[in-house]
């Protein structure tokens, strides 16, 4: 416990927390994008879209060994704690840094710092707002941007993303997320002391490459629905999905 306290007290320790929580959130994104791409794999023999089936699987994963929703809520708690810690330490570090540089230069010039790196706080804030919005939109259905019915993921996507404003908005935020990851993923290696001149190029290519793959995976969904190239709304009985 003492170790964690003294680690948290230091800026490097806070950055360590930011990088580990960032890694957890990055891992979640990988899973999320893989799940999303199920919208393109069609339906089961019963006519249930794979993505709806996958959503149902997440709810009942581990049953009957563990109760329904338990795995899902465990993951949600881990992600929520990771997100809160990530934001908390970053805000603390930003306040500290603002105090360390109270007066800016009249004339300022950056030689190496990239814009995505300098804009991490802005991209992060936008992503945070988006996460809240996205949960209220597609998870709880509190924000209605089209017809919404719990569990009918494919249809909900069709209804929301047929509105170009919603689709373009999602694409925009995903590009911002890409900029955040492009710096953040490499930065994680540097903060953990894992980068060195031997691996630097590979790690940066890895960070950028994986970011591009993830972001393309995310934006292809709203673009496909918006362009009308996806098969329309699917109707099937709820029993087929839940099995009871």
């Amino acid at each position, binding site marked *: 416990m*003492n*170790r964690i306290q*003294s*680690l948290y007290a*230091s*800026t*490097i*320790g*806070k*950055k*360590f927390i930011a990088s580990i929580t960032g890694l957890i959130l990055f891992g979640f994104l990988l899973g999320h994008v893989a799940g999303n791409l199920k919208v393109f794999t069609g339906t089961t023999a019963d006519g249930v879209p794979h993505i709806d089936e996958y959503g149902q699987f997440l709810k009942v994963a581990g049953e009957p060994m563990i109760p329904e929703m338990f795995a899902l809520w465990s993951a949600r708690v881990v992600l929520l704690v990771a997100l809160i810690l990530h934001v908390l330490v970053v805000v603390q*570090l930003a306040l*500290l*840094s*603002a*105090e*360390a*540089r*109270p*007066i*800016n*230069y*009249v*004339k*300022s*010039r*950056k*030689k*190496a*710092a*990239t814009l995505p*790196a*300098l804009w*991490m706080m802005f991209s992060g804030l936008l992503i945070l707002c988006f996460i809240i919005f996205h949960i209220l939109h597609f998870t709880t259905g509190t924000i209605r941007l089209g017809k919404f019915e719990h569990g009918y993921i494919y249809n909900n996507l069709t209804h929301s993303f047929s509105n170009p404003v919603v689709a373009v908005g999602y694409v925009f935020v995903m590009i911002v997320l890409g900029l955040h990851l492009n*710096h953040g993923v*490499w*930065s994680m290696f*540097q*903060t*953990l*002391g*894992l*980068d*060195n*001149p031997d691996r*630097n190029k590979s790690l940066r290519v890895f960070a950028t490459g994986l970011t591009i793959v993830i972001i393309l995976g995310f934006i292809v969904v709203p673009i496909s629905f918006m362009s009308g190239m996806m098969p329309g709304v699917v109707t099937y009985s709820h029993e087929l999905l839940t099995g009871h």
Partner: protein
Amino acid sequence: MKIKLHVWRQSTRTDKGRMESYELDNVVPDMSFLEMMDTLNEKLTIEGHDPVAFDHDCREGVCGMCSMVINGEAHGPKSETTTCQLYMRHFKDGAEIYIEPWRASAFPVVKDLVVDRSAFDRIIQAGGFISNHSGPKPDPNSIPIEPEVAETSLDAATCIGCGACVAACPNGSAMLFTAAKASHLGMLPQGQPERFDRAQSMVKQMESEGFGSCRNYAECEAQCPKGISIAFIGRLNSDFLRASLLEPVDRRGEMKSQ
């Protein structure tokens, strides 16, 4: 050459300070930047004004005293060059040049362009040393070391402690300085006994001085007059995390079986 200067003027530590503009004629392209400043000061003195206070010492690029942010860059536009090694031929005739002090709350302005960098001395005092015997001089080359490691350690040791890294960092972080100092000792066999304590105590002192946190911009490396690599920051991160998370605290504690 004719140039227009905008210089930060601040009479005391508590003075609010402001930018003031001066025009300078007859600047010779082969003057160093500091000689140009000397010329400005002669002119100001003759006119009965207070000359611009600025730090300087060796004027050959090794002491680390000169400290000016010139046109938004620590030590000016020429990379891996200290202000004293910057020449007026690096500027165009009629150039407008902005000169400001290092900006960081850990480096308070003493007067005009002079800042108090004693925070760096205290970071060194916290861990920038090795334990050595005080007996007779050891035989040369009696401690084996891989030449590449020795060279890398010397790369870190080229740090002249000027503070350009702090001045360049948008967060006013002193990680490059601290990492260079911790690494140049921590990579050598003689620096091993204190290696992990050093990482912790130097970082602790750095933070208590009020420097900001590293955001991996690499702006410090780009503006470092010695081109010291951010690889040393990664190394310090690694040593610090290992010291904080893995190094035993209770080495001689009791163990039981079960």
